[in-house]
């Protein structure tokens, strides 16, 4: 079902017109209300009046994650504090978190885009949705919560953790859709398998997963283990939270709500637009936000865009799955390695569980590259040569994909940490040694 047909299906020309008008408005807001933005635009020699169409956006300077840290906590607000009704913050694994402020209108836009997502997944007012994203500063919990209430569904506000209770509620309340990180979905699947409750006793049909990059292989694994259809929900704290984009039932990319969040793809080194369909860094401009609008915010997520009209009827641009981030890329012995590549290989190899942990270190001036993996229970045998063969098989497969041979360490079942939120799968010890 399409929640807002006018917004989601309007012609490209009509939308570009709308985007241009909204861009002008948001630029006026930041220029007159946010000093750092005013200064930066003056330095770049561009005034709000110089921007007339959405294509003029390239004249504007970028905003980076560093800017958000430099103006911590709320230096980039474009509305007075009296208008801010809520704050959220990113998990902030390095340094200070990033704090964002929302006005009442921002929250209603968030609910609107969230409702578009849930409708696209086929959910409506008769459905029970379990939100197992963390509630709190993280945008996931409250963001998804607002979306479920907007479509009139029944929300089960579980937050993350307490897996046994999650399964109990899911079972007893006839939950139809689960919303959490893909890694937590796998953890839940594993716990359900171990609980011995037959899958037929669950009503679960739909998975709504986001907040960390995941691959097609991981999607298939989750769908297979939970017996559901798994959809991507895209969002980032700086821009809004979950609801920036969603997959329709055709699942040929993630539709971006570009009437509110304008996407561009740039070459991360030059800052120039790449050719249409080419991969690069995703950049967002919030066209309607009041609390903390961001202009040309560099997400560091790597992807590409497809502007063809989707068969679902929506004209909203589609984004390919995030292929990694410019900042989670590991450079090992000079080779670029993305954890998502490792994940794909492991998921394609039937003998292994979909959990892994990468450790990179430097010993005698050489980088070491180790991956811990669990073998699926039925593949642990009495045959040591067979086990060593499994190790070699995986090492070779990974080498053929990333161009670097890892040391594979087989570990005992369920010994790798299962996360309840965003999964931490990399330890780069080199950072501490320097």
């Amino acid at each position, binding site marked *: 079902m399409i929640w807002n047909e006018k917004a989601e299906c309007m012609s490209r020309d009509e939308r570009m017109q709308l985007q241009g008008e909204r861009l002008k408005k948001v630029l006026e807001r930041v220029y007159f209300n946010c000093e750092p933005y005013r200064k930066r635009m003056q330095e770049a020699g561009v005034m709000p009046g110089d921007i007339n169409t959405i294509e003029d956006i390239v004249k504007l300077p970028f905003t980076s994650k560093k800017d958000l840290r430099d103006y911590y906590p709320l230096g980039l607000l474009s509305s007075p504090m009296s208008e801010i009704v809520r704050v959220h913050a990113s998990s902030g694994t390095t340094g200070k978190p990033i704090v964002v402020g929302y006005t009442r209108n921002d929250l209603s836009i968030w609910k609107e885009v969230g409702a578009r997502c849930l409708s696209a997944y086929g959910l409506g007012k008769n459905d029970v949705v379990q939100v197992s994203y963390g509630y709190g500063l993280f945008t996931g919990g409250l963001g998804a919560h607002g979306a479920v209430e907007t479509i009139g569904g029944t929300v089960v506000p579980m937050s993350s953790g307490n897996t046994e209770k999650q399964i109990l509620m899911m079972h007893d309340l006839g939950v139809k859709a689960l919303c959490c990180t893909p890694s937590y979905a796998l953890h839940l699947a594993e716990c359900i398998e171990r609980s011995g409750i037959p899958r037929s006793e669950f009503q679960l049909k739909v998975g709504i997963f986001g907040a960390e990059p995941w691959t097609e292989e991981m999607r298939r694994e989750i769908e297979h283990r939970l017996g559901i259809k798994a959809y991507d929900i895209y969002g980032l704290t700086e821009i809004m939270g979950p609801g920036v984009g969603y997959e329709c039932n055709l699942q040929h990319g993630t539709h971006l709500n570009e009437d509110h969040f304008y996407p561009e793809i740039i070459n991360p080194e030059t800052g120039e637009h790449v050719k249409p369909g080419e991969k690069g860094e995703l950049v967002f401009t919030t066209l309607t936000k009041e609390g903390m609008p961001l202009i040309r915010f560099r997400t560091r997520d790597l992807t590409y865009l497809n502007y063809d009209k989707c068969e679902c009827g929506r004209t909203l641009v589609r984004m390919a799955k995030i292929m990694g981030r410019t900042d989670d890329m590991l450079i090992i012995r000079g080779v670029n390695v993305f954890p998502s590549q490792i994940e794909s290989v492991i998921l394609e190899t039937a003998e292994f569980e979909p959990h892994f942990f990468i450790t990179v270190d430097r010993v005698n001036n050489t980088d070491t590259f180790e991956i811990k993996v669990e*073998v699926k*229970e039925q593949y*642990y*045998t*009495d*045959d*040591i040569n067979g*086990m*060593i063969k499994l190790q070699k098989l995986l090492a070779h497969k990974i080498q053929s994909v990333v161009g670097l041979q890892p040391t594979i*360490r*087989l*570990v*005992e*079942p*369920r*010994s790798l940490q299962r996360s309840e939120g965003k999964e931490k799968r990399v330890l780069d010890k080199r950072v501490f040694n320097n």
Partner: protein
Amino acid sequence: MKVKQLSVFLENKTGRLNDVTKILAKANINMRAFSVADSSDFGILRMLVDDTEKAKEELRNNGFAVSVTDIIGIKMANKPGTLNKILDILAEAKVYIEYMYAYSDSDKAITAIKPDDMEKAIKVIEENHITTL
């Protein structure tokens, strides 16, 4: 003749073997024979116990990866030359031994053998009237 053997996957870290023996002790399970095969970072503990099903269950409940394999248990006199005689018979019949381990107790010795071809090994053992468990 066929005996159920338990194999437990163990990471090479201090105390891991103790965890296994502790669980078995608590469940009052007696180990009759065992061996450890190891690579650089993991090992496989293979053992014969008096209650295979119970041991398997207890270990699995404690998170260990356990598999059950059929092996052949051969019983022989504990004196020089008996094992050699049996191995000669198997070698002559071209039964390949993937691994084996043994224990002896006063006048008897027991050898656990994992042959590559179980049916063939059983046939050879029967034809040669070798005593088994």
